[in-house]
């Protein structure tokens, strides 16, 4: 009955929390798992989990990622994420989509439209937020042949926040894909990364 939990430095663990929104069948959970895997590849600590409950093809779903500098012990919901990744712009008019996002929090949206159009259409969700739009569907279709936006969005997210180097994401992808599919995904990562202003969210991410 000795002390079992290793002694912990008494400063609270510093976390970066991300919420990913998508539709059932859009690889929403896979995106969270890949991002956590990328952090793990980089020797960082991470945790990823889906929104618990039945997922139906097409239904709006969300998944969560926590990144940290040391082991994450907590097992509870992410309430105030630092960033949002929205895989389908159609979700913008789902009530409370951006609820809980920290004031400075960045929103990365997969959409073919430009920012003013989106802001006009979903004012309450996006106004006074810093939002980056990425045409991930088109990018993915061009390279993978299918509009699977998750890899492109993760690459753009890491380019914006520089939380992890891109090759961490590439190593994570290498664990899941191989051969031709892997090559195409790696190409997509490089293509998507330079579509967004590198390091724009650096300060926010490392605040």
């Amino acid at each position, binding site marked *: *009955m*000795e*002390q*079992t*939990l290793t002694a*912990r430095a*008494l*400063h*609270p*663990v510093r976390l970066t929390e991300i919420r990913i929104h998508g539709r059932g069948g859009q690889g929403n959970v896979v995106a*969270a*798992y890949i991002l*956590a*895997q990328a952090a*793990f590849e980089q020797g960082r*600590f*991470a*945790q*990823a*989990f*889906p929104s*618990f*409950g*039945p997922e139906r093809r097409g239904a709006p779903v969300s998944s969560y990622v926590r990144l940290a500098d040391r*082991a*994450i*012990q*907590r*097992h*509870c*919901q992410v*309430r105030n994420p630092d960033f949002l990744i929205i895989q389908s712009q159609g979700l913008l008019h789902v009530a409370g989509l951006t609820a809980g996002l920290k004031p400075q929090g960045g929103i990365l949206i997969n959409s073919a439209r430009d920012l003013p159009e989106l802001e006009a259409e979903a004012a309450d969700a996006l106004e006074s937020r810093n939002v980056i739009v990425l045409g991930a569907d088109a990018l993915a279709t061009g390279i993978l042949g299918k509009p699977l936006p998750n890899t492109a969005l993760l690459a753009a997210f890491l380019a914006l926040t520089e939380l992890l180097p891109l090759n961490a994401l590439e190593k994570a992808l290498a664990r899941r894909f191989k051969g031709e599919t892997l090559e195409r995904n790696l190409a997509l990562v490089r293509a998507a990364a330079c579509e967004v202003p590198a390091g724009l969210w650096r300060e926010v991410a490392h605040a």
Partner: protein
Amino acid sequence: MLEALEGSAAIAKAVALCRPQVLSAYPITPQTHIVENLASLVADGQLRAEMVSVESEFSAASVVLGAAACGSRAYTASSAQGILLMTEVLYNVAGLRVPVVLTCANRAISAPVSAWNDQQDSMSVRDAGWIQLYCASNQEAVDTTIQAFRIAERCELPVMVCVDGYILTHTLEPIDIPTQEQVDAFLPPYRFSRMLDPLRPISIGNLVTPEYYAEARYAHHQALLRAKDEIEAADRDWAKVCGRRSGGLLSVEGPDDARIGILTIGSVLGTLADAREEYPDPPAKLLKLRSMRPFPADAIRHACRGLSDLVVLERALSMGSGGIIGAEVRSALFGEPNPPRVHNFAAGLGGRDMPLEIYPRLLKAAEAPEPTRFAIMDVELQKLPETER
């Protein structure tokens, strides 16, 4: 070696490393990913075992009973309704003293139907005569699963490894997966003394008349009490192999001079551990209850010495009475010279989130003038019509 894995995938790898020969399962959320991972290990030829996809949990438990009785290490897993459906078989496996390991991916009980986490399922079968070990993290789930096979086979008592559904099973995090050599060093090949064997034919499951039934129950009860040492030994021996402890029966963390203790079970412990760092005062001890059965009464008495207040937090309740662990802790402390005041709360039922902020509320409750006999601390009464409040 360290891998980023979903809890269920890690548990499946742990089970595979224990070289089971018969796996049986019936799908039920949130246990499914465990049996799916095992199925693909078998399908890819990485695990030579018989995967029996049965037509119900009642049969899942029956298949592993038959297999274990016949000399093969057997494993199954289930949740909520599945656990209740196999309850008759659970009593039977324990009563026959057949060593089997079952993972319970904890989930709330219907009605009303809920696919989300709480511990009502395993708590409802705490009297079935099984050893019940609860895991606070996915790493513990891996280590406890491996220890469970040795505990079960040495004590000839089935072991239920309880893992919070979704919260742990569906969460991906870094987990150290031991090597086959490490497991083989710790866990000897399966041997069952009363194995069904035409060479030494015996009958298992006889009718017992009133002359002997009480003795059978007594022996079973004693075996469970003696299993405490085996549970501690397994934890110590496994720590020698992999360098990690899982907390034996009960483990305590926190400053010795703390006057407040929080005793709880399962994944919420990680959240409270993080919370202690954000709310350093008043200092409090965390008492992690790992073994629900056999219930570590003396360990609890020892850990509570010096405490003015003990908060017991659980994720189930005995409707019409109150807290389950709370009641058992109070009975354990009965007769202690100056026992702490025991405040008993249930929370997180049916998957309700237990955020960090629950920790300061528990500390505040501990300093209340009157101890709370029992309350569901996160119920929102405005959601009920007047008549039902």
